[in-house]
């Protein structure tokens, strides 16, 4: 027996609107159109950001009770846990202090050596700290939401790292929040370099393999890889800065029937439960520093700098020709030093240049530095 009601308003007899079936067809077609536009053509970014901005207060409201419970439970941590954590933090700080003091000296050495080898200077990447708000609820992908967005100057494509390594990449920027696709997501791939051998390859996310992991694809069965090898970003992509640790090789399966080995890696960053992350600016979007070598008209921004450099070059060339070749090395650092220092302020004002030359720039340096090491054992 259906429930009777005291409702005395007469239901509309004739003005029923379109039938349920026609509504179903209309809205299903709309939904399918949206899905195709999202998955294939990536056209729905405006809709997402508009709906996301409208929903932001609701999301904020939904976040509060969870944050209160999580924050409230922290008050009841016992003293020993807190003391242990502080001790660990102090130990980590002490071990890092030693490395930090070495790093300054090494950075100077590196700059000098790069000038000697006439390599492009490495760029320093500015970063912005962000807090992880929550894991995206979608169980079919691996994404997190952070509390920095368009208003804080986050751009899509920015690499995101945490204390241990690369965590992922910003894939969607809303007004106040951003969405980060983790390295274990199936759609994310990172160009990496084996720090032991210097071999470059690409690591793909593989969320289904043993919880959460990554995979190194298209590596020959006879490739020089060992379990425990550290993979760091190679920097050839123009997105990630070079040399940030990504993953460690966990297991290698070499099969006789396949030309490729299956290589499973474990990401170093805490992909589940990270609290604070650092959003870096994509390397390709940073201002270019001119190469010490001239002959590249794009690299130099101001005429003054150009003229200065040309005159310097001319001097250098003249000297090189006139004097004996043995004098060259001693001559060069003196020549290059003002050049390397001078373009700094100029390039920050310079417009962004296409990343093509920059992408290729770190390559020879990295390869040159790594090859001898790889061959020697």
């Amino acid at each position, binding site marked *: *027996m*259906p*429930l*009777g*009601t*005291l*409702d*005395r*308003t007469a*239901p*509309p007899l004739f003005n029923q*609107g379109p039938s*349920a*079936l026609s*509504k*179903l067809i209309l*809205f*299903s077609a*709309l*939904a*399918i*159109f*949206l*899905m195709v*536009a*999202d*998955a294939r053509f990536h056209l*729905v970014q405006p*809709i*997402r950001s508009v*709906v*996301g901005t409208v*929903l932001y207060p*609701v*999301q904020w*409201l*939904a*976040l509060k*009770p*969870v944050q209160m419970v999580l924050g409230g439970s922290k008050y009841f941590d016992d003293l020993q846990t807190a003391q242990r954590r502080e001790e660990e933090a102090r130990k980590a700080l002490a071990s890092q202090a030693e490395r930090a003091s070495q790093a300054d000296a090494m950075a100077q050495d590196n700059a000098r050596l790069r000038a000697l080898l006439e390599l492009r200077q490495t760029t320093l990447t500015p970063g912005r700290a962000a807090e992880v*708000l*929550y*894991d*995206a*609820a*979608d*169980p*079919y*992908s*691996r*994404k997190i*939401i952070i509390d920095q967005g368009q208003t804080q100057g986050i751009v899509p494509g920015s690499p995101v790292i945490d204390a241990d390594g690369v965590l992922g990449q910003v894939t*969607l920027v809303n007004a106040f929040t951003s*969405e980060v696709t983790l390295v274990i*997501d*199936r*759609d994310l791939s990172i160009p990496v370099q084996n720090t032991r051998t210097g071999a470059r390859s690409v690591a793909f996310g593989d*969320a*289904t393999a043993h919880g959460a992991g990554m995979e190194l694809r298209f590596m020959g069965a006879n490739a020089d890889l060992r379990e425990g090898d550290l993979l760091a970003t190679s920097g050839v992509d123009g997105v990630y800065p070079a040399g940030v640790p990504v993953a460690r090789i966990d297991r290698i399966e070499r099969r006789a029937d396949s030309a490729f080995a299956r290589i499973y890696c474990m990401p170093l960053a805490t992909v589940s439960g990270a609290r604070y992350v650092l959003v870096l600016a994509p390397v390709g979007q940073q201002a270019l520093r001119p190469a010490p070598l001239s002959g590249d008209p794009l690299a130099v921004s101001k005429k003054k700098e150009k003229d200065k450099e040309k005159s310097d070059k001319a001097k250098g060339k003249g000297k090189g020709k006139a004097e004996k070749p043995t004098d060259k090395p001693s001559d060069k650092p003196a020549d290059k030093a003002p050049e390397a220092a001078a373009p700094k302020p100029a390039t920050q004002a310079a417009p962004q240049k296409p990343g093509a030359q920059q992408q290729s720039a770190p390559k020879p340096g990295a390869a040159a530095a790594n090859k001898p090491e790889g061959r020697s054992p």
Partner: protein
Amino acid sequence: MIMRPGQQQLLLPLNPGFMWASLFVAMLLNMLPLGRIAWMPDLLALVIVFWGVHQPARVSIGIAFMFGLAMDVQQSALLGQHALSYTTLGFMATMIHRRLLWYPLFSQALQVLPLFALSHLIELGLRLIGGGVFPGWSVLLAPLIETALWPFATILLLAPQRRAPEPDANRPL
């Protein structure tokens, strides 16, 4: 209509504000950032089916579509995935609304199980076609939990309409 005491109670007219508030609260509960849980029941789908069955003139398929879009954006899922699944749910609720209320509560729950199963199947199929990761077999639990929640949803959401028509000292509510 022949009224038998204890068997049938006339419901008060629906307060539309309560209906919208319940939809909003269900969306809010769905948006609680509890992490990536495959078996999480979709409370918004449950409430949409409930009002689709009880008030088919008020909750239309278009409203279900709009709530679906909101869920897609919030979960950063494929845009249109929840919209399609909720549209289907709204349509199916309209289809069964004349039949369903003749049955007792637990039979009703059994009859809405295929609806929830279909909606989760649509989402799973769409995402696997779209290149998503298989979320694990616990995703099968979600429609079962939603079905189990149907009697509670009925008791809770019809409670304001079950109040006394004329409140007095003995029946203040």
